[in-house]
């Protein structure tokens, strides 16, 4: 049972005295009378743990919990870094992502950008040292925050495959490209450079250099400047929900100024082209706002400041603190404004902290956070999700704990659910790849917006048992399943698809723990014409894209998968949901009215045939001529009926029924103009083949 490091402890030799009222002077600490260890012995084992070591053992904290997620997280960290770098340098980002299989469950991930490149001496530190980076020590809206991501990905690769991270970076057309192979020393959290005798290699920017790269097998897309990172890791490639492809698609959606080229392990290429050449405005870096500082941080700041007086400390360390406000804080804390900030006692620091909370300080400047913007959101969502109605709302900036943030929301309603747009080929691939044990699980886990009930409906339609293994389906059963998927009405029972973003980065996991999802569920969508069970996501063909931009996004963990539920954030979310919800409600009511009119007209048309036939049987009259005449009367009749009246009793003309009376921020796609439906009922099959003439109106 005992003993570590060969130290035997006998109770005779090493009597430890315990004060024990009942049992004299000797104490037996364990049942067999042996002490386990002394403080000295324990001390010998107590030593500093390196961050790298800690994360190597706690990889789930960084998003490397399983092989599938590891692959995605690696791509994500590299792409996030690439985009941040480009935007900071003012370059329209273009990113190449390539995943190649190098063995069973082994993949090589290549991510290259056209960013500014990295100066030579920084490369090893950025990619080979955890918590090294430009982003942690400042408050500025960016994708990365801590400087953990990419080096953690490299470390994960090294741990699972033993392969180093490879980096090529070039800062200008006529400058050499730097090539590094790096591995992280997890014990010391320092980078180890493996190539060029520990110095890395410089590849000249000429033809010779290009030939050298080709010869050495160094991959590089010829751009004037940029960075390429290559990581080999153990992973699992899978399509569907939570896949690399989905992540890139969603990234493109929230970053309409980015072009992404993607090549998957099977060599399929896909490009997401940018929708705009306009870079988002450069976010400003800000000092922390006093309200956002915790006591412990305040104490640390006081200790480290170089300011000589308390008033100066307050003014220089924080944003929005003027001389007057500094004075008022000092007064409230009963401290002299000329006191030495480094000499404040614990009590005085606490008083200062309380004083800050009690003093009225203007909210932080908000030009440090930039939304995507309603128009771009609408266009991006329209590009990505085929629907009939789109609405977007960007909230004015707000503040939580002194950190400015902006919530924006875009909503798409209607259209075909994603699963029904799938090609037969892609469907077969998904079926072959899945590790789901039952068909039901496969359906629910692979496709967005597919609830258990929708899955059941599909299986019932296909007449397949729920528990069958997806791999065991024969050709005929697969066909049946595919047909069922395409034919079943999934709108019913389909739950809202919520796309979450933080600083333009899609969040793919832990939806349930995220403030966004929670607030969606707490919002009453029934008011806006959707069905919703209490405390659940609403149902219907709805996609909701939610973006939170902030200088510091409060994630619940380092893997940045869920946003913490601060009341201020939840309030803004709620207001944004209500804004798009109201617009949706208006649209749905209008659509219902339109449908009603259509039904009305159809109803008449339907009966006219019967009436014409009956009349022609009684009295000598040509049935078809009579029918035509009745139809023309019907059209005139219902044309009058189409003239609906708005809430104020004014007739609504079709032109007015577009975007502006939604209050802006909407996009309506009408598959068919109203009048067309009244032409004698086409048979259903003709409707299907008719290309829907789309009329799109932005506002």
């Amino acid at each position, binding site marked *: 049972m005992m003993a570590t490091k060969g130290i035997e402890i006998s109770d005779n030799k090493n009597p430890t005295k315990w004060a024990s009222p009942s049992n004299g002077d000797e104490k037996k600490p364990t049942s067999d009378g042996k002490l386990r260890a002394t403080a000295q012995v324990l001390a010998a084992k107590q030593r500093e743990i390196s961050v790298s070591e800690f994360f190597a053992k706690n990889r789930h904290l960084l998003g490397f919990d399983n092989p599938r997620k590891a692959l995605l997280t690696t791509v994500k960290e590299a792409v996030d870094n690439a985009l941040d770098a480009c935007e900071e340098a003012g370059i329209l980002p273009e990113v190449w992502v390539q995943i190649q299989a190098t063995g069973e469950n082994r993949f090589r991930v290549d991510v290259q950008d056209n960013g500014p490149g990295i100066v030579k001496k920084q490369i090893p530190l950025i990619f080979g040292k955890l918590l090294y980076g430009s982003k942690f020590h400042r408050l500025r809206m960016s994708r990365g925050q801590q400087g953990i991501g990419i080096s953690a990905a490299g470390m994960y690769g090294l741990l699972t495959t033993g392969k180093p991270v490879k980096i090529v970076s070039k800062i200008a057309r006529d400058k050499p490209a730097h090539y590094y192979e790096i591995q992280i020393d997890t014990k010391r959290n320092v980078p180890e450079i493996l190539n060029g005798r520990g110095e890395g290699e410089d590849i000249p920017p000429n033809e010779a250099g290009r030939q050298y790269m080709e010869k050495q097998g160094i991959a590089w897309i010829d751009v004037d400047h940029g960075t390429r990172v290559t990581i080999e890791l153990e992973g699992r490639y899978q399509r569907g929900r939570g896949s690399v492809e989905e992540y890139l698609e969603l990234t493109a959606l929230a970053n309409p100024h980015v072009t992404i080229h993607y090549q998957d392990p099977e060599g399929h290429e896909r490009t997401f082209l940018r929708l705009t050449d306009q870079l988002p405005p450069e976010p400003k870096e800000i000092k922390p706002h006093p309200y956002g500082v915790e006591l412990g941080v305040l104490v640390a700041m006081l200790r480290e400041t170089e300011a000589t007086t308390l008033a100066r400390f307050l003014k220089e360390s924080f944003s929005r603190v003027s001389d007057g406000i500094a004075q008022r804080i000092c007064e409230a804390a009963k401290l002299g404004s000329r006191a030495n900030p480094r000499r404040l006692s614990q009590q005085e620091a606490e008083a200062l902290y309380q004083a800050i909370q009690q003093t009225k300080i203007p909210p932080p400047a908000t030009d440090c956070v930039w939304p995507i913007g309603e128009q771009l959101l609408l266009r991006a969502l329209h590009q990505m999700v085929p629907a009939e109605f789109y609405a977007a709302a960007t909230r004015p900036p707000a503040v939580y704990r002194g950190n400015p943030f902006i919530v924006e929301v875009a909503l798409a309603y209607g259209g075909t659910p994603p699963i029904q747009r799938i090609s037969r080929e892609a469907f077969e691939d998904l079926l072959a790849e899945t590790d789901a044990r039952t068909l039901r699980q496969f359906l629910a886990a692979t496709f967005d917006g597919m609830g258990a009930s929708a899955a059941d409906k599909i299986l019932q339609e296909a007449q397949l048992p729920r528990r069958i293994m997806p791999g065991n389906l024969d050709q005929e059963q697969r066909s049946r399943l595919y047909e069922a998927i395409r034919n079943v009405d999934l709108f019913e029972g389909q739950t809202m698809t919520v796309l979450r973003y933080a600083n333009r980065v899609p969040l793919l996991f832990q939806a349930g723990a995220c403030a966004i999802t929670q607030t969606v569920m707490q919002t009453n969508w029934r008011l806006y014409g959707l069905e919703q069970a209490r405390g659940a996501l609403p149902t219907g063909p709805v996609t909701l894209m939610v973006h939170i931009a902030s200088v510091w996004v409060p994630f619940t963990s380092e893997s940045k998968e869920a946003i913490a539920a601060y009341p201020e954030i939840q309030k803004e979310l709620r207001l944004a949901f209500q804004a798009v919800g109201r617009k949706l409600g208006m649209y749905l009511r209008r659509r219902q009215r339109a449908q009603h009119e259509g039904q009305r007209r159809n109803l008449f048309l*339907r009966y006219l045939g019967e009436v014409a036939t009956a009349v022609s*049987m009684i009295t000598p*009259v040509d049935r078809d001529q009579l029918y035509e005449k009745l139809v023309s009367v019907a059209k005139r009749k*219902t044309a009058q009926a189409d003239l609906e009246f708005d809430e104020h009793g004014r007739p609504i003309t079709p032109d007015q029924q577009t975007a502006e009376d939604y209050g802006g921020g909407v996009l309506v796609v009408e598959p068919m103009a109203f009048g067309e439906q009244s032409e004698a*009922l086409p048979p259903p099959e003709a409707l299907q083949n008719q290309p829907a003439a789309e009329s799109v109106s932005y506002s």
Partner: protein
Amino acid sequence: MAKRTPKTDLEKVVVNPSRLPPEDRRTFERLQRLAQKVVSAAEAGRDPVLDVPARTLSNVQYNAKRGIIEMGSATNRRQLFNLNQARSFMQTLLVASGAARLIAQGKTTSLRGMYYLLKHTIEGTREETFDDQEESDSAIEDLEVLLNALREELHLYAKNAGAMVGEIVLVDSGDVIDCSRMGSGGYSIPSIVEPEVIQFRRCNAKFILHVEKDTVWRRFNEDKFWKKHHCILTHGGGQPPRGVRRLLYRMHHELKLPVYCLLDNDPWGYYIYSVIKQGSINLAYESQRMAIPAARFLGLRAKDYEECGLSPSVRIALNETDRRRAKQIAKYPWFANKKEWQREIKQLLDNGFKLEVEALISKDISYVTEEYTPKRLRDRDWLD
């Protein structure tokens, strides 16, 4: 809309009305006028409408002078281009075409037959022209009032209900029927009893006794009441169908036979009498061809429990519906100012129970045929 698949002879219904028998010609011309209204409206670019006389209590008046219920002049406008009326407009015209077809072919069918004749899926939809027979029955009634034509004139009949025995010989569709030789079942009264179908040949009867239902009628037939008292014995199986009422009317008017009714002593019995006498609210438009204002209510009476000394066990307690119904009937204009009827209904309510004709059997099996009815007739003890 695609043309419907022609049902061979369906398309060729349009006939020259002049070739039809006279009673059918009248109906057919009315049908054509109805159809022509739709055609001319369509040609003028107007929406076709039908003004259907309202078949509601509020549109029913009691003509005290004639002693029958008559229909008022109120109409309901039925529009083709009205969301709530389009379907019934279509159904009314369908029924019209069905009737035209029957007339043209010289055939008759039942209400249910008409329902099946016209029921089909509307082209290009999943909607049926008629969901159930109630819809087609209602459309038929609309057509009757629209054309002021009887159901029989539209070549429609209801199922036979009601029987007749007695000292009368008639011709039904060319067959001579001697109603005194009908055995225990009697002559089943058809639903169409118009002169074209039934002619009276010979009659020795002095009056008609109409009883409520089959069981009582059997008692009277078994006891050969009609032979003894020289009468005609009919029943209508509860509320008498139109064929029975029409035949009673014809015999009453053409053969000058008084009509006596022997019905249960309850609101339902009163109502049956009211329908025979004045006509029904629902079919007020037919009253003048069916109502028999001179019909008399022989029994049972509320006083009979005591007068005949019936045992308490034959009483059936009145329920709330009965009481409500009785009060309603008391307010009918044709009962409202008849003191005897008011007394009768009041006594029923005071009694708190109702009596069936069969209750008289508790005295003796043939009490009703040998004592009760002959005595009442002798004493002229009836309500009018």
